[in-house]
C-alpha cells in the first residue's frame, strides 16, 4: 500500500516525557555512544538503542509491519521510499523548534522538500580517497578509478552497493546519478564491466583500512569514511571528481507505528541543538546540515579533515540522490551482472 | 570285537508311552500355558514361519530343535512381541497376546545376539529388569548378586559388555533374562558359547529355576543331547513348520518322518520298499523289518548307530569293511562301507574304545529299526 495520506496524529506538546520510552535505531558508531543517555537525562524519556547494518534492513522491517522502532537514522532516498508507503510519521515542526538551526538549503532537498517526513542529520559526497604517497599523483576524475593507470591497477576498490556502484560510471558518462533510462544504465554497465578486471575488490566498509595498510592506493569512498583513514595516515586525501558526484543526506525519521511520538520528536529536536550536533559532528567526522552546529566546529578539525570544511554551496553543486522507483530492479540487475561477470 | 549286550533292546512301555505323547503334538490341549495357533510370518519372499501350531504346558521345560534358518528365532521373537505376525494367534494362559506390548507380557527373551546394553555395566544390565518392576533396592542387589554367582560372573560386575569374552557375554545375557523369573522364559541358544563344564552347571541352574519358581522354559538349542536330556518335550521344526512335538524318547525312538529321524540323533537311513514283514533295501536286499506300527507303505528304514552291532565277518545282516574309527571319549564311532556300489556308509557306535581298525572286515547286525515316511509335515 502507498496511500500515506493518513495525516498527522494529534500530538500533545506538553506530554510528560518521563512516562515515554523510545527505541532509536542507528548504525553503530554513527552517533556518540552517550548521546541517548544525555537525552534521557535532559528530557526524562527512556531510550533504547538498536543498531542496523543497512538502510535495507530498516526498510524491510518497516515494510514487514511493526518494526518496534520509534526513530530511525536512514538515507534520505530510503526515507522517501518509506514515506511513499505511508510508513513514516510526518514531522510536527512545533515539536522540533531546532529545525531553525538547519541551513536553509537543507529544507529543499528533493527526496523530501520542506522536511515534512524527515530531518537531516548528516550529509556529504561520494568521491575518491587515495594515498598520495602511493599514487604519486593527485587524481581528480572518475576515470582515474574507472580506467586506472597501470601502476595502480589492481590497487583500487569500488563500493558495491548498487546506487553508488553505478554512480562513477553514470557521472563519467555525463548522466544523472538517479537516471531511470535503461539505455544510460546499460552504457554505465559496459563501463563497469571494463573496470572490473582492474579492481582489487568491491568494498563497502573497510576501504579506508586498505588504504592505511597499503593494500589499496585509490578507493571510491564516502567523505566521512575517508576521514577515518586520514586519522591514521595523513597522506590520505579526499577529492570530489570533476565530473561531479552525488549529494547524499542521512536523516532521522519517526515511524508511523511509534507509540511515543512526543518523545521521538524531542529526541530529534535534542540532536539538532547546536551544542549537541557539533559534538556529534566532531565525533563521527561527517558534516552536519546544521548551520549553528557547523559554525561551532574548530578550525583545527577542518585543517585535519579538509572535506568537513566543504561549504554548502560546494555541496549543492552536486546532484542530490533520489529514489529511482520502478528502475530499482534494473539497478539491482546491473549490479548483479557486473559482480557476476568473469 | 565289541559285543553289544543282547538285553539292550527297547522296553515296550517306553515305546508306547512316547508314541502316545507324540500324538498331541500339533493340536491345542486345554491347560496349555502358551498356545501358538497357525502363526505365519514372512520376510518378503522368505517364509520364516508357516502355520506354526504348538502348545506349551505350564511349568514345562520345552526345547525347540531345528536346522539353522528354520524359524526358531522368529518364533521366539513373535512370542515375546517383537515380530508382527502375518496371521495366526498367540495365547498366553488363554489370553490373546495380540494387544499386549512386549513390556506387559510376562515373558522374557534371551536374544541369540545377546543385545546387552553397551552403556551399562554387567551388574546394571542384570539389574535392569528388576528395577523396571520397582523392586526394593536391597532385593535387586541380592537377586543380582545371587544370579551372578550362579552364572559365575561375579568378578565381572563392574565391566562393560565390550570388555567381556564371548562366553562371558552370553552368561550376562542369560543372567539378565532369568533374574526376572517370568512365567515364561524364552532362551535362544543360551549356552552355545560355553564350555561343557559351565554348560552343565548352567543346565542344573535352569532346572532348579524351573522347579523352584515354576518357570516355564522354551529353549532353542542346537545341542541335541541338551534338548533330549533337559526337555520335558521337544518340538522339531523345519522350513517354518513344526515337524514333531514329543517327549525326547518318543522323538528319538518314534520319529514322525524321515527328517526328524535324520535330525534327532545319528541314523543309518536305508532307502527301499516296505513289504509285509521285510524291508527290501535298494542296496542290501531284503532285511528283517522289526516294527512298523504306523503301517508306513513308502519310506526309509532308520537304524540308530547304537543299535548296530559289530559281529564277526559273515554274520549279521550286512557285510562291510571298516573305513574309519572315530574316538569321542566315552564312545567310539565305527564307519563301515559295504562293497555294494552306491550303498551308503553304515555307522555303528560302541562304548569306550573300539576293537576294530580301518580295513577290518566285519558283519553288521541289528534287532531294532523303524520305517518312517519321507515327506515333511
Amino acid at each position, binding site marked *: 500500500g502507498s496511500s500515506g495520506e493518513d495525516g498527522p496524529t494529534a500530538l500533545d506538546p506538553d506530554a510528560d516525557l518521563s512516562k515515554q520510552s523510545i527505541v532509536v535505531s542507528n548504525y553503530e558508531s554513527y552517533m556518540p555512544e552517550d548521546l541517548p543517555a544525555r537525552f534521557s537525562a535532559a528530557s526524562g524519556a527512556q531510550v533504547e538503542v538498536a543498531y542496523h547494518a543497512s538502510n535495507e534492513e530498516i526498510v524491510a522491517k518497516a515494510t514487514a509491519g511493526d518494526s518496534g522502532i520509534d526513530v530511525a537514522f536512514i538515507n534520505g532516498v530510503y526515507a522517501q521510499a518509506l514515506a511513499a508507503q505511508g510508513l513514516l510519521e510526518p514531522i510536527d515542526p512545533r515539536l522540533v523548534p531546532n529545525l531553525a538551526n538547519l541551513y536553509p538549503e537543507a529544507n529543499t532537498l528533493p527526496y523530501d522538500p520542506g522536511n515534512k517526513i524527515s530531518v537531516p542529520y548528516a550529509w556529504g559526497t561520494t568521491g575518491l580517497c587515495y594515498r598520495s604517497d602511493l599514487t604519486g599523483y593527485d587524481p581528480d576524475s572518475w576515470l582515474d578509478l574507472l580506467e586506472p593507470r597501470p601502476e595502480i591497477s589492481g590497487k583500487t576498490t569500488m563500493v558495491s552497493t548498487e546506487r553508488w556502484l553505478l554512480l562513477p560510471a553514470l557521472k563519467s558518462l555525463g548522466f544523472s546519478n538517479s537516471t531511470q533510462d535503461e539505455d544510460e544504465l546499460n552504457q554505465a554497465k559496459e563501463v563497469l564491466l571494463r573496470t572490473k578486471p582492474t579492481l582489487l575488490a568491491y568494498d563497502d566498509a573497510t576501504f579506508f*583500512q586498505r588504504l592505511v595498510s597499503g593494500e589499496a592506493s585509490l578507493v571510491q569512498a564516502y567523505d566521512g569514511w575517508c576521514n577515518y583513514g586520514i586519522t591514521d595516515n595523513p597522506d590520505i586525501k579526499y577529492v570530489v571528481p570533476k565530473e561531479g558526484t552525488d549529494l547524499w543526506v542521512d536523516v532521522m525519521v519517526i515511524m508511523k507505528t511509534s507509540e511515543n511520538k512526543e518523545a521521538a520528536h524531542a529526541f530529534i529536536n535534542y540532536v539538532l541543538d547546536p551544542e549537541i550536533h557539533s559534538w556529534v559532528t566532531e565525533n563521527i567526522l561527517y558534516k552536519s546540515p546544521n548551520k549553528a552546529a557547523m559554525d561551532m566546529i574548530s578550525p583545527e578539525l577542518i585543517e585535519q579533515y579538509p572535506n568537513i570544511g566543504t561549504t554548502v554551496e560546494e555541496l549543492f553543486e552536486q546532484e542530490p540522490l533520489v529514489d529511482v522507483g520502478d528502475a530499482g530492479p534494473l539497478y539491482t540487475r546491473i549490479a548483479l551482472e557486473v559482480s557476476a561477470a568473469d | 570285537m565289541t559285543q553289544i549286550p543282547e538285553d539292550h533292546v527297547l522296553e515296550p512301555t517306553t515305546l508306547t508311552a512316547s508314541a502316545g505323547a507324540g500324538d498331541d503334538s500339533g493340536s491345542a490341549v486345554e491347560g496349555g500355558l502358551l498356545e501358538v495357533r497357525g502363526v505365519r510370518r514372512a520376510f518378503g519372499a522368505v517364509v520364516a514361519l508357516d502355520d506354526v501350531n504348538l502348545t506349551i504346558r505350564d511349568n514345562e521345560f520345552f526345547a525347540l530343535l531345528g536346522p539353522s534358518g528354520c524359524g526358531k528365532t522368529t518364533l521366539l521373537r513373535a512370542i515375546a512381541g517383537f515380530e508382527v505376525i502375518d496371521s495366526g494367534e498367540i495365547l498366553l494362559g488363554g489370553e490373546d497376546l495380540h494387544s499386549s506390548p512386549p513390556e506387559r507380557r510376562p515373558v522374557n527373551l534371551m536374544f541369540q545376539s545377546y543385545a546387552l546394553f553397551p552403556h551399562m555395566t554387567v551388574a546394571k544390565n542384570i539389574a535392569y529388569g528388576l528395577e523396571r518392576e520397582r523392586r526394593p533396592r536391597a532385593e535387586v542387589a541380592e537377586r543380582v548378586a545371587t544370579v551372578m554367582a550362579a552364572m559365575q560372573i561375579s568378578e565381572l560386575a563392574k565391566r562393560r559388555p565390550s570388555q567381556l569374552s564371548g562366553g562371558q557375554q552370553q552368561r550376562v545375557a542369560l543372567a539378565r533374562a532369568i533374574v526376572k523369573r517370568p512365567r515364561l522364559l524364552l532362551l535362544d541358544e543360551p549356552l552355545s558359547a560355553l564350555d561343557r563344564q559351565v554348560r552343565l552347571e548352567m543346565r542344573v541352574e535352569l532346572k532348579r529355576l524351573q522347579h523352584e519358581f515354576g518357570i516355564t522354559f522354551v529353549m532353542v538349542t542346537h545341542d541335541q543331547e541338551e534338548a533330549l536330556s533337559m526337555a520335558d518335550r521337544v518340538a522339531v521344526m523345519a522350513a517354518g513348520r513344526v515337524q514333531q512335538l514329543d517327549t525326547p524318547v518318543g522323538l528319538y525312538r518314534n520319529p514322525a518322518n524321515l527328517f526328524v529321524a535324520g535330525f534327532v540323533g545319528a541314523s543309518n537311513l536305508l532307502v527301499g520298499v516296505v513289504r509285509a514283514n521285510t524291508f527290501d533295501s535298494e542296496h542290501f536286499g531284503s532285511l528283517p523289518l522289526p516294527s512298523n506300527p504306523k503301517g508306513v507303505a513308502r519310506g526309509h528304514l532308520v537304524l540308530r548307530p547304537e543299535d548296530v552291532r559289530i559281529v564277526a565277518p559273515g554274520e549279521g545282516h550286512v557285510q562291510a569293511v571298516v573305513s574309519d574309527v572315530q574316538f569321542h571319549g566315552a564312545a567310539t564311532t565305527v564307519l563301515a562301507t559295504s562293497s555294494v556300489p552306491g550303498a551308503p556308509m553304515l555307522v555303528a557306535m560302541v562304548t569306550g574304545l573300539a576293537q576294530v581298525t580301518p580295513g577290518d572286515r566285519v558283519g553288521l547286525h541289528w534287532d531294532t529299526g523303524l520305517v518312517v515316511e519321507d515327506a515333511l509335515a
Partner: protein
Amino acid sequence: MPAQKAHWQSRSRRRARAGLLGPGLLLMAVLSIAPLVLVIAYAFMTRGRFGGVVPGFSLDSWARVLEPIYLGVLWNSIVVATITTLLALAIGFPVAFVISRLPPQWRMVALVAVVLPFWTNFLIRTYAWVVLLNDVGPMNKGLAELGVISEPLGLLYSEPAVIIGLLYSYLPLMILPIYASLSSSEREIAEAASDLGARPWRVFRDVYIPLSVPGIILGGIFVFVPSIGNFVIPDLMGGGKSVLLGNVIRDQYLTARDWPFGSVLILVMLAILVALFAAQAVASRRLTGKLTR
C-alpha cells in the same frame, strides 16, 4: 620384545597412514592455527583510532572484559544459547526419533522435509518470521479476528523472539546428528529393554537417549555455538534490544573498530565454550560410560 625390530603398527603402517591422511591433516592444521594466532596477537595490542591495531603490548583490553556491561552480555548470551539448545533438543529429539523409526524408504523424504526450511536463505527466513509475528502481522490479526486475543501478543522484539529465531535457524543442526546416531543404534538393544519391562518412555530414557548421546552432543555444539555468536537474529528479531556476545564482538570489529578488545572477547568466548564443552563431555561420559573397545 627385541627393541630393534619394528612392530608392524609402527613404521611402515605409519608411513602408509601419513600418505593417506597427511595432506588433509596438514591443511587442517594451517586452517586451524593461523587465524587463532592472529586473534591472540591482536588481543595484546592497542587499538588504532579508526580500526586496526597499533603494535605494542597492552593488557588494557583484558581489563575491560570484567566491566559489568560485558559480563552481563556474556551471561545473557549463555542463557539464551542454553535455552535455545534445550528447546532444540526437546523438539529435535522426537523428530529425529520418529524419522529413524520410519520405514527406510520414507526416511529420506522426511529428512528432506525437515531440512527444507533451513535451506531458505537465512535473512529471508528471518524476515519471514518478522512478517508473520509482528503486532500487525497475519498471526496477531488472525488471532484477534478469531477473538482469541484482544491485544497484540507482542511476540517480536523480545528475548523469546530471539530464541525462536535462533531455534528456527539451527534446529536442523540438532535433528540430523541425532537422527544419524539413532539410526545406527541396534534395534535389538531397545527390544531387550522393553522385553525386560521398560515402558516406551523408559526405553527412550534408558536406551535411545544414552545411545544417541554422541549425536546429542554434536547437535548441542552445532546449536549452542552459532547461537552464542549470532548477531543478525538479535538485530532483526530482537529489535536490537537483546544483545548477544556475537553482536558485541561484531561491533567491536566493525563499528567500534576496537580489534584488540574484539579479539579479547573472542578468546573469552572460546574459553567459555571449551569449558562448557569439557563439562558436558565429562557429564556425558558419566551417562554413557567409557565406551572403550
